[in-house]
């Protein structure tokens, strides 16, 4: 039942009222259903913070310890919840500190609205204190951006910002608001944006393309599905599962697509790409029809393009027309939202089971298991491996945790071995490869899914890029589990130096601090595991904890991640060692 208070708010927004621009910003956020934002105050955004103070019962603001942390937290929140993440910062350095998060959200299609303060209109262009051209700076890394210089523009621009961020292929939007526009008054009324005349969020599916795609799939002898994040963003997990099962097609995923289909599903054949699974990589170059769904043929997925799936007919299901034929030629392009296009093609698909073809994947998996996986997960050597830590987390969490990874070896191992039963469970910086992503993203992920366990898996390098966000975990008692896999190296770069630079380990050795003491300094329960005998019980203790928990695992210093498609090699040239 609508409470009296809610009724009043609804009436207030329906009829216009005279308020300041800063207060209008808050009302816009509330009207968009926002109840949580991340940010950092400063001179040019102070009027908005003053309003946040007044509205703190309706809108929680989390003070991250760096603006970059605010963007990654907002990303983590958006990625687990499917809602728009909101970050706020002041002008100048506050705004420029958002750039990495914006770029990350842009390349990984994460819906964000970032609000920055700006110097007053009359000072624009005067090199005023903390003035920076954030519109110019953020243009290449935003889906849309806009500078508001008049209070009266605020409602329309905010509505447009949310609409653009979340519709079609999602992405980050930045709204820069001059200080005078925050102070000045306007007649406020809010109307949600339902369309922008020059912007078409998703193309309409073409029946002819759907029919051609269905024909190709129905006649295929060796079809392979490779899905990406487009399944998760389009909420098409169920349609994907039905397609895979009905047509009996082995299905592989890109790193951003992980968790859209249960890891244990019999037709889930694993990850493609540089450190993906052996079978789906090798067999990409043997399939006769490659069905790419909501993925963009990133170079880490395709390896050498001239030798990528040349024998196959390619069907590309994609929401963004600019992705079609960008890297890989599509014989049939099915444009549109994945839920819609997959839903439409399902009735056209014949039941099938490509058993012999699927057996090839099983054979390849066995080879990979014997040479790589077994040693990664059940090592017999003395040193701890990253893989066995992930496996313990799988066991202790019943495969239900949200796994947030940073960037590097642990990320590849995490994505290879983490097992998922639920979608939106693998949060990682896929396209940009942003070290420092995981700790703040895990904070956002936990706040976006309070009922779920969130485990951040981070290397010792990336951890120290945003380690200050432990302050947020402490201050707000955010019950995330932080696992640092410490090999005292920048492990992935070290691996490349070993393999491709004659073991010249330039600047990849790290002399690390006592991470346990640092966590304890923030009053976070912390343990270090250095021996296998303590691993299982400590991981169990961590997962059973209701509070934040920090676990450092000292792993083998010079382990490598395999399989590996070396840079510039073809997917079929994947190395097992």
């Amino acid at each position, binding site marked *: 039942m609508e409470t009296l208070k809610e009724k009043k708010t609804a009436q207030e927004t329906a009829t216009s009222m005279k308020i300041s621009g800063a207060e209008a910003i808050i009302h816009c956020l509330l009207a968009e259903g926002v109840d949580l934002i991340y940010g950092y105050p400063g001179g040019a955004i102070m009027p908005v913070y003053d309003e946040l103070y007044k509205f703190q019962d309706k809108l929680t603001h989390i003070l991250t310890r760096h603006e970059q942390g605010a963007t990654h937290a907002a990303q983590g929140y958006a990625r687990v919840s499917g809602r728009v993440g909101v970050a706020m910062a002041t002008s100048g350095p506050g705004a420029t500190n958002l750039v990495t998060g914006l770029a990350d959200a842009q390349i990984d299609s994460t819906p964000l609205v970032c609000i920055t303060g700006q110097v007053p209109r009359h000072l624009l262009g005067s090199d005023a204190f903390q003035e920076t051209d954030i519109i110019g700076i953020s243009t*290449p890394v935003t889906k*849309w951006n806009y*500078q508001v210089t008049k209070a009266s523009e605020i409602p329309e621009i905010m509505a447009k910002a949310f609409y653009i961020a979340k519709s079609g292929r999602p992405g980050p939007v930045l709204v820069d608001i001059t200080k005078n526009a925050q102070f000045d008054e306007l007649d406020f009324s809010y109307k949600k944006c339902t369309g922008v*005349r020059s*912007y078409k969020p998703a193309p309409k599916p073409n029946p002819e393309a759907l029919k051609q795609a269905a024909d190709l799939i129905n006649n295929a002898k060796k079809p392979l599905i490779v899905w990406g994040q487009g399944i998760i963003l389009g909420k098409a997990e169920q349609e994907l599962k039905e397609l895979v099962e009905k047509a009996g097609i082995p299905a592989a995923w890109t790193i951003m697509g992980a968790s859209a289909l249960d890891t244990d599903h019999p037709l889930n054949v694993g990850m493609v790409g540089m450190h993906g699974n052996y079978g789906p990589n090798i067999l990409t170059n043997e399939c006769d029809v490659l069905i790419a769904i909501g993925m963009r043929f990133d170079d880490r997925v395709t390896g050498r393009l001239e030798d990528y799936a040349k024998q196959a007919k390619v069907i590309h299901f994609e929401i963004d*027309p*600019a*992705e079609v*034929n*960008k890297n890989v030629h599509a014989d049939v392009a099915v444009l549109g939202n994945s839920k819609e296009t997959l839903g439409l093609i399902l009735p056209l698909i014949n039941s099938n089971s490509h058993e012999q073809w699927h057996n090839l994947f099983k054979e390849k998996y066995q080879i990979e298991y014997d040479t790589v996986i077994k040693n990664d997960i059940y090592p017999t050597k003395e040193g701890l491996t990253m893989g066995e830590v992930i496996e313990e987390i799988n066991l202790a969490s019943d495969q239900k945790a949200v796994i947030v990874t940073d960037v590097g070896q642990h990320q590849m191992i995490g994505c290879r071995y983490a097992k998922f039963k639920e979608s939106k469970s693998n949060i990682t910086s896929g396209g940009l490869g942003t070290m420092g992503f995981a700790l703040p993203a895990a904070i956002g992920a936990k706040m976006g899914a309070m009922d779920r366990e969130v485990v951040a898996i981070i290397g010792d390098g990336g951890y120290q890029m945003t380690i200050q966000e432990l302050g947020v975990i402490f201050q707000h008692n955010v019950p995330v589990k932080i696992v640092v896999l410490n090999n005292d190296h920048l492990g992935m770069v070290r691996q490349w130096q070993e393999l491709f630079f004659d073991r010249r380990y330039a600047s990849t050795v790290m002399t690390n601090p006592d991470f346990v003491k640092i966590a304890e300094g923030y009053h976070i329960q912390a343990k270090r595991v250095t021996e296998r005998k303590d691993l299982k019980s400590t991981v169990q203790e961590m997962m059973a904890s209701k509070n934040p928990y920090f676990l450092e695992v000292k792993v083998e210093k010079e382990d490598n991640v395999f399989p590996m498609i070396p840079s510039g090699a073809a997917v079929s040239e994947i190395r097992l060692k």
Partner: protein
Amino acid sequence: MKNEWFTISVYSENNVGLLNRISGIFLKRHINIESLNVSKSEIDHVSKFTIVVNTTEKWVHNIVGQIEKQIEVIKAFYHTDDETIYQESALFKIASNLLFDERQIQNIIKESNSQIVTVSREFFVLAKSGRRFEIDEMYEQLKPFGIMQFVRSGRISVTKDEMQITSLLKEFQHN
């Protein structure tokens, strides 16, 4: 794939940051903009960018996709020279005494179909519209006599085929 000349036509909202957004797409791919013209279009409040590039069809296809993806872009097209009617304009500023002293100058003006825009005691200005090679030819002919100032505009072009913007705009509005 070989490099060719392409004319990219972009219909867009008249937005202050859009030029930056569009030029960034070329910058990111190291593709030089050979000429750029921004003007109003046949539709009220809709701007038109005319951009000339020399690149492969694969790249121009890719770029046009990226341009069209920008929120304020209504539609972008690319065409080869054969598919468009195109021109450039140039202004030549020349010392006035040459008009009387050098008979050949008058012949050049006549033969090139250029116009005298203004004449003063010190200088006169010739305007010439046409294809790039025609302007280049006129430039070469005038050069020996001395050109005080020269400027050439970006290409402007219309296509032989229809560009269906009005119907697109209606479709956007109904969506």
